[in-house]
């Protein structure tokens, strides 16, 4: 198995990082710095109707968002979240922390920790539920979407008449998305998108990484059905994604498709697939009635997410009090794709009812 770890030697990385910081702060000395602080958060209510029935009223993710400009070319962006970790404790996470150098027209070099631009959802919504079309992220986020990467990124946006965009990034792998274990594993992401109109965006991306220890993979940002990976051996991971997004005055459509292939010496190659579809109809400007269908299947010999199959049906309604406050209510029905008891990973069917209030200040 090929391993592409340690391609960032200290001799290469450290001088680049220090040069970048030096460039930023020497430029900032010559101009007035401007900064902007926002806060986002949400409150959840959920009832689960399964073998056991329960209801929760909980404080969701709360976050601080900082956007600052050192000068015309250099900017800083930080996103920090606070999550309930049980027994009155809260966990602080750095979700995005990046320095951006706009070197030519709409082309930029970005360094730091950012959301991996593998699909529309991860490149546009981040952690603020205020912008989510449905209460939860698609199922694929709970299984294999690498939400964050720490590294370097070349970005272009709104290029030419047809508003093309690209992202090319090299950074940490799934086992080291944060500040520890950085550069132990490497991931490469290439993404392109096209915006034929202001309301529409098509995107395609490819992502690949190799991990020494698949149990360390950090991608648990889903709808709450994430399971720990017991396999701690090496694993190759390759992924392709396609997104179609249309958010018009009346109709809203989002489709996220994801396919990945994992390879281990133990069980060989496994093909895994997921698709999320959202359709919303806006009426009286601030009301959206929506429906969604989410499906995920991972192969029997997969050692990254383990065999899993799930379908989710969504029916919901959103009311936007303002651009900074909205309420969503949705009914969800979960079931397995294979309901014939031949798959021992079947976790049965259930209904969920959820209400979420999201805000931004």
């Amino acid at each position, binding site marked *: 198995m090929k391993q592409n770890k340690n391609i960032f030697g200290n001799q290469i990385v450290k001088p680049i990082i220090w040069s970048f910081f030096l460039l930023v702060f020497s430029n900032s000395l010559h101009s007035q710095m401007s900064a902007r602080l926002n806060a986002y958060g949400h409150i959840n209510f959920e009832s689960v109707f399964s073998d056991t029935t329960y209801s929760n009223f909980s404080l969701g993710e709360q976050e601080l968002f900082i956007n600052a400009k050192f000068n*015309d070319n250099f900017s800083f962006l930080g996103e920090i979240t606070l999550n309930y970790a049980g027994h009155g404790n809260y966990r602080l996470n750095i979700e995005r922390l990046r320095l951006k150098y706009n070197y030519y027209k709409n082309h930029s070099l970005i360094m730091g920790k950012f959301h991996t631009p593998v699909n529309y959802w991860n490149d546009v919504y981040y952690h603020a539920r205020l912008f989510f079309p449905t209460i939860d992220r698609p199922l694929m986020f709970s299984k294999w979407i690498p939400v964050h990467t720490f590294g370097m990124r070349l970005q272009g946006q709104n290029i030419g008449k047809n508003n093309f965009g690209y992202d090319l990034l090299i950074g940490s792998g799934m086992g080291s998305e944060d500040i520890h274990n950085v550069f132990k594993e490497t991931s490469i992401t290439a993404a392109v998108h096209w915006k034929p109109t202001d309301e529409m965006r098509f995107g395609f991306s490819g992502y690949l990484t190799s991990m020494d220890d698949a149990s360390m993979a950090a991608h648990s940002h889903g709808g709450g059905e994430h399971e720990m990976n017991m396999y701690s051996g090496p694993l190759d991971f390759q992924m392709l994604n396609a997104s179609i997004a249309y958010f*018009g005055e*009346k109709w809203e459509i989002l489709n996220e498709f994801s396919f990945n292939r994992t390879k281990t010496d133990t069980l060989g190659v496994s093909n895994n697939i997921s698709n999320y579809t959202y359709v919303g109809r806006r009426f009286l400007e601030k009301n959206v009635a929506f429906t969604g269908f989410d499906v995920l299947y991972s192969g029997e010999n997969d050692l990254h997410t383990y065999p899993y199959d799930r379908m989710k049906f969504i029916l919901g309604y959103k009311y936007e009090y303002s*651009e900074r406050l909205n309420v969503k209510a949705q009914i969800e029905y979960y079931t397995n794709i294979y309901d014939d008891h031949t798959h021992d990973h079947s976790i049965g069917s259930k209904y969920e009812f959820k209400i979420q209030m999201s805000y931004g200040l």
Partner: protein
Amino acid sequence: MVYRLRYTLIILLFLVNGYDLNSQITLNDFSIVVIGNNTGTKKMSETTIKQYFKGKYNKWPNKKRVIVALASSKHPKVEWYSNLLFNKSFFAVKKYWYSLVFQGRNDAPYFFASDQELIEFVKLNPGAIAIVEKSSKVPEHLKIKLNE
């Protein structure tokens, strides 16, 4: 293959939102003037100027940073201006910009309650643009002509 895909997408777009595409309003039809300070251009097409207002470009041809100034909710013509520039309501414009800023793609625009405030802001900030009514007292050197 590429052309076929493009035509299919355009047809799909019309099916989904054909009416809205035909309801574009042009700045030339109204008593509006576009103003800008040290943008490096005195004449620009309407399509291009609207793209600057939508945050599609970060810099002007002279490398100055683009600073967008818009009418606030207290401005008496806010809905009209929002429709002219974005073909959207002011509520939709705020949502559009709020999301762009959170994505880290653009700097937030500045909002003002009157044409006079918009003119003053543009006058003081190189790279700033806004639209105001022609009847407002606008210094000649701030005006950007539309060439279509």
